[in-house]
């Protein structure tokens, strides 16, 4: 089963994401901030990496961008989508070294998000 790791500091958003993604047939893990994301991935067995990261850009302790930067430095090349509350964040805003697969704007258009996830994990 395709596994997606979702990180957001809002429990409500995590519940929403989990529900929508599970309905669409994905296995979902959640993290409350970037710190938890890096800890989860460092502790996990190699080969146990999720198929996709869905990271909120702004989180306390460690942002999604900073977490992704750390993971990329550690050689993790899992595709990643950055969720941003900026109205019109675009791929052009991503630091080029992060290999961000795309931006998801809030409020989330789930039809588009599920299309993007399906494409990135196929």
């Amino acid at each position, binding site marked *: 089963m395709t596994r997606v790791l979702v990180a957001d500091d*809002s429990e*409500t*958003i995590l519940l*929403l994401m989990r*529900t*929508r993604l599970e*309905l669409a047939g994905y296995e979902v893990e959640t993290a409350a901030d970037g710190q938890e994301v890096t800890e989860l991935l460092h502790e996990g067995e190699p080969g146990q990496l999720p198929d996709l990261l869905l990271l909120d850009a702004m989180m306390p302790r460690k942002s999604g961008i900073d977490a992704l930067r750390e993971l990329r430095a550690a050689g993790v090349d899992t595709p990643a989508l950055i969720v941003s*509350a*900026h*109205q*019109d964040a675009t791929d052009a805003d991503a630091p080029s070294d992060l290999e961000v697969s795309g931006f998801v704007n*809030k*409020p*989330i258009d*789930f039809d588009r998000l599920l299309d993007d996830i399906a494409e990135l994990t196929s």
Partner: protein
Amino acid sequence: MAVIGVGRFIQQRQDFEDAIARSYQVEMAARVRLTRGNDNRTARAAVAAQANRRQELRDQISSDTRDTALLVAAGLIAGLTGALLLFSGLIASMRRPLEELVDAAGRLAAGDRSARVEVGGLSETATLGAAFNEMAGQLELEASQRDQLDRLKDEFVLTASHELRSPLTSVQGFAELLMLERDSLTAKQVDTVEIILDNCRHLVRLLNDLLDLARSDAGRLAVTPKPTAVAPLIDDAVRTMRAQTEGASQALSERIEPGLPLVDVEAGRIRQILVNLITNAHEYSPEGASIEVMARVVGVDVEIAVTDDGPGIPESQLEHIFERFTRGDAGLTQRVGGTGLGLAISKSLVELHGGTIAVRSTPGVGSTFSFRLPAAGLSGAGPGAAIAEAS
């Protein structure tokens, strides 16, 4: 001097008349002696002498009058010259400070809040200068306070529209989740959830519009234009709006002149303007109305226009229509859910692209909102033109 001259003239005239009168008295006495017949020679000589005497007196007085007139004239000229010299001195001493004041007022009006004058010269101009400086200082203080308030307002709008997005995502997301299970909901529940979703979309529009305006005010609304074809932009906007206009049985059509030149625009922003204009036409027109999107070349510009045959806009509203929070009369339709910001943002965006936006409307006939964008490469200095020439 002139006064002395006039006084002397009057005195001379008096003396002259007295002398003439005495001369006649002497002559009369001589003529009396002549008629008595004694001392004829002496009397005749006296009569002749008096006639001569009077001639001399007359010559004398006319020469004196001339001299006195000259004196009066000289006095007047000297007086006037003195007055002129005095005035020009006064004027000169006021003129420099006044010129400085006018110059400083001009700079202040043009936005140079540090404009001040040097206080000096006559006490009147010094007072004026000091008053000007005090006023300019007050204006500078108020302007800087206003700038600070504006910055705070922009920051607030940016932060608020950012912070509101997360809870909005939840509300909208869970409402959508409910709709995924609409088969197990009652018709009333489905209606309720649809109302929630409608209002979420409205809030999103409001947030996006407020954010755009705050950016525009802060000078942070920027576009990155690229040479872009107009027709696909219109197709895209029309496709986006199709479901809504069909829902109101409105005909939405395109009329695009073939062979339109490219325009230098940021596609997403032009699409946003078009969606704004078509949304307005849709919301303010009754069911069954016609909406047409046209594009054509006008001079060196491409003009895009959205025309409807809706109720039109009264002339009193037309002049304020591009101001924020101006909204048309919603009496005709309950569909109107706009934010009152769409046209203000559209105007900012069109102008950011170096274009212009305009409206024409006849009550009872319909409205046309049109905007013009300069065709790409026609400015001559664009990098695209240089590359095209080099290759």
